[in-house]
Structures are given as C-alpha cells and as structure tokens.
C-alpha cells in the first residue's frame, strides 16, 4: 500500500488537487508524540491556511508539522530544514522548510514560541514527512504562552474548518 502511495505522490503534479484533497486525512496520529505527549492528548489541534498543523498541550508545549494535504502536494521529501533549539520565534516567522524534488517549501510558526526540540529523525529519514506527517513526521516542539497566544490560536482553523477550507 505504501509503495502505491509513493508512486502516486511522484505523479502528484498531474493529479487534480481535488483528488488529493478528498484523499487527505489531516487528523493527528494518536499513536505518536505530538498526541501522546500529554496522557490525555493535546487540548487543541489547529491548522493554518499555509497547511501547517499545531498540537497544543496544557503545559504550554506544542508540536508543529505540515498537513497530509501539503505533504502529498509536495511529493517525496528529500530534506527537512529544522531550526536551532533554543531559538525564540515570532508568530508567522519561518522555522524551516521541506525540500521535495527541487522545491523548497517554507514552514511558518502559527504562534510565537521557543524551540525546545526538533525531530532529528527527519535528518536521516525525511520521507517520514510523507509517510506520517501528523505523527512521526512532526518537525518542531516548542513552548508557547497560552495567555499571549490566545488571539493567534483563535485565528487558526479547527480540523473541520481546515477540511472545509481545502474543499473551497
């Protein structure tokens, strides 16, 4: 099944976007760190119009990655650029990029925060971005301040809103 998926990805340039959109499952993988970081899972999972997702945990920790839709549209990732740990990032600032066949696609922070960890597994295995973008393919773990970020969080899409945005 996986190999079939990857063949499809390589040809994504010729596949109508609507098809990709209908195929996308953009919900968080419940078996991986971005979900399991808290015992009860994240308090919220939000999405951006630039196709990033962020899982927000109650202790002020968050995970960032790109959506299934974005990963499928990009095709096979060949390199994932990640930020330095400890870096303070402004809202909307670029924190890395995903390179697929000759395309560098920027990834932005939907909230302000401090980078705590990056997913070093992506250095060896950038294809995790394609295989499990909302789980094993998470990119950045960061700390955010709930009070300061409230407005920014409210401005992000819920899963339903994001899926609706994709269909528009």
């Amino acid at each position, binding site marked *: 099944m996986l190999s079939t998926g990857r063949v499809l990805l390589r040809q994504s*340039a010729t596949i109508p*976007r609507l098809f990709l959109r209908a195929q996308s499952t953009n919900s968080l993988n419940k078996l991986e760190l971005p979900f399991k970081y808290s015992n009860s899972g994240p308090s919220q999972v939000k999405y951006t*119009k*630039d196709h990033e997702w962020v899982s927000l945990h109650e202790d002020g920790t968050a995970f960032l990655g790109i959506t299934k839709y974005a990963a499928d549209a*990009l095709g096979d990732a*060949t*390199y994932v*650029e990640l930020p330095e740990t400890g870096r303070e990032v402004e809202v909307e600032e*670029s924190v890395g*990029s995903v*390179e*697929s*066949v*000759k*395309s*560098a*696609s*920027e990834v*932005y922070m939907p909230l302000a925060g401090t980078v705590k960890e990056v997913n070093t597994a992506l*250095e*060896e295995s*950038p294809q995790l971005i394609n295989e499990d973008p909302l789980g094993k393919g998470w990119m950045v773990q960061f700390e955010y301040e709930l009070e300061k970020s409230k407005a920014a969080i409210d401005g992000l899409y819920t899963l339903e809103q994001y899926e609706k945005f994709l269909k528009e």
Partner: protein
Amino acid sequence: MTAVAKTCLNAYGVAGTVLKRSPLLPNICYPQLKRRVSSKTPFDINDSDDKYKELNDYYRDLFTNDNVNTTLGATSKINIKTEIDLLNDELANLTDTAVPPHKLPLRSEDLQRVVETPGRFVIKSRSNDPYFNLALEHYIFKNTPLFEQSIFSSQRLLFYVNNKCAVIGKNQTIWQELYLNELNKRGYEVLRRLSGGGAVIHDLGNVNYSFLTSREEFRTTFFNQLIVQWLNKQGHIQDFELNGRGDILYKKMKCGGSAFKIARGKSYHHGTMLVNSDIDSFHGLLKPSGQKGVRWVSPSVDSVRAGVTNIPLGSTEQFIDICTDGFQKYFKSADSIPVYYCNDTVSTNSEIEKTRALLRSDKWKYCSGPKFKVELDSSHDVIEVEKGIVVSSTIPNIKGMDFQRLIDTGSNEAQLQCLKPLM
C-alpha cells in the same frame, strides 16, 4: 555594419551589450538616456542670467552650424567628455527616437506600486548582478498580493541574465558541489539561492526566467511545458521536449534546469535556459557526484549531473521575447499585460538591499546548509561540520574551526594536506 543597423532599431539592445562588457557603464548610461526623453529644460533660459550664460552659449553653438569659431569651442568641450559620454552620444546618434519612457527602469516607488498592485506583468532586469537579481525576485515573490477568496490573477514573469556565477540550492553543501578555488580563480561569484534544487553555472549567455503563481496553482512542469510549446512553434518542431524530471531538452540534451520555492500561499518556478553560453568553459567548476578520495555523508540535496547544450536562438533577448509573447497570450485578459524594466541602481529599495546583503554574506553562503560528515580516503580522517563549523574530527585541534578557513589554510600546511581533495 549589420550590427550597427541592428542597434538602430533598439537603443536598449545596445545598452544591453555595453552592460555585458562592463558592468560599470549602464549605471551611468541610464540617467543620461533618461535625460534625453525629459521634456523639461534643466535650467531657466534667460540670457541675462550670467549663471547660465556659458551653458546657453554652448547650446546655441551646438545647434548653430554657420559659426566656425564656436564650433571649435564646442569641439573642445566634447574633447573633455568622458568615454561614457561619448558612448551615450554614439547611442543617441544611432537612434532616431529616444528611449521610450515605458522602457526606462522602474524607480523604487514605482516598483513597489506595481508589485503590490494585483495583476499580471513581466519584469525584465537590466542588471547582471546575480545578488541583485535573486533579491529582486525574492522581493517580488514576497510582496505579490494574495487574496484567499478570489482566483489568483497576479502571475508574474521575471527575466534576468547574470554575470559569471555558480549557484547552489538552499539545502546543499557548498564544498560538495563546487570547486571553489577554481571558480574564484576564473572570476565566478558563488551564491546560495533561496529555492531548492541543485548546482548550476550561469554566464551572460544564459537566461533566467522566473514564473510566479499561487501555491494552489503550482505545478512543477506547468511553465516548462509552455516554454516547450512556444519554442517548438519557432520552427524547431518537436526538437524541444520535457524529460521525466520536468527539464527542458533540446534534441534530447538538457538545455536548462529548474528550481522552485513555495511560501505563504505563493510559489515560483525559476529556470535557466542556455542560449549562447560558453559551455566548454564550465568544465571543472561543478564537482561530480562520486569524488575521488572523499566520501560525503550528508542529507544535502543532490545535483543531477547532465550534459548540456545551448538552444539555437540568436540571443538571450530572443528567448525573452518569445516567452514574454507566449506569457502575454496565454494569460490574456481584458487588460494587456505590461512589461517593466529594472536595474540595480534605480529600481531598488531597502528590502531588496537587505536580501542582497544576506545573499552576499559568508554566513548564508557557507554556514547555512545542512550539517554533514566527510570522510577522507587517504588518511581515513573524518570531519563533521554543522553550520560551517567543525564540530568533531579525527584530525587533532581543528574542532571549532571555520571549515572554509580550514580548507583555505590546509593548502599551505603539511599536516592538513589530507584536505586537498576537498578543495
């Protein structure tokens, strides 16, 4: 003489040629050319005013044929003109009409206005500075407006021709891709661009095209497919085609490369097209994938090596004209698609200069690629590098050193001779 006849038709064609030979000239040429089209008198014509007497006399003399003495005077004045003035005079004499105002480079405020206003356009850069051109491209990309709820109608097409340079992709290792010493020796600039993809060599015979559209409409093969159609229409039916990687082939040989960038709902596809490049002289500048005596362990993005060829067009201008025409017809709407011109002195602003400085910086060029490990066969040494700095090595006392400086000094120090294969 045919060259002169050709230049009569197009003043800027000449300016373009001059510009290629000496990057210093056009900056001084443009204001002069611009002045020619200005209808304003640069001074108040008033004979009683001594301040302008000399100038007025000079102009009167210039346009009065029957006064031999003053003609001499005028000649002496021409003699003290610089070579640049003479060139401009020559240009002015060759052309019956002055440079049309719409072909003058956009001033910084006009550039900002056209970029920020929704709509399609073509921009041709008259600069051959690769740093400026990449910075201009980034400025246009960043500032093109995007409205989520409406269909994207601000496709832009930019053309530029760079002086000799080697350009690597954003996520590449510069030492793995380029023979830096050789490039330096032969007078090439070395750049890391902001988009993905592999290493490529530019010279004045190579055109860079950059097609900007929305992320939504982004397809890697879209614009190259159009170029293939446009070129095949020029009488080389079927000679141009796309390969599986979306590269344009001429008679089965690669004639250019592509790279892409996606950010904030927008995308661009920029590509190179070899028109009359000195391809033979590119030899020995790009490193092959399997380098002798060295093993790179790195997530760095690969360059796909391929034999390349020029396409059979007379000039880079001709390629630009074919694509401009094709773009204007393909995206035809009620309003015609304008063509603007830029150069690196008039059409710049602080944002462009900031990117230009970043692209010029060693920090961006040498310290921003992926981390890597390199193994040297001769001595079995291993060096690990992150952000341009040696973080660990079997060679004593080099930890913490700047990798570029290490290679530079390595050539002189006996104990670092093992680094030779890295140069």
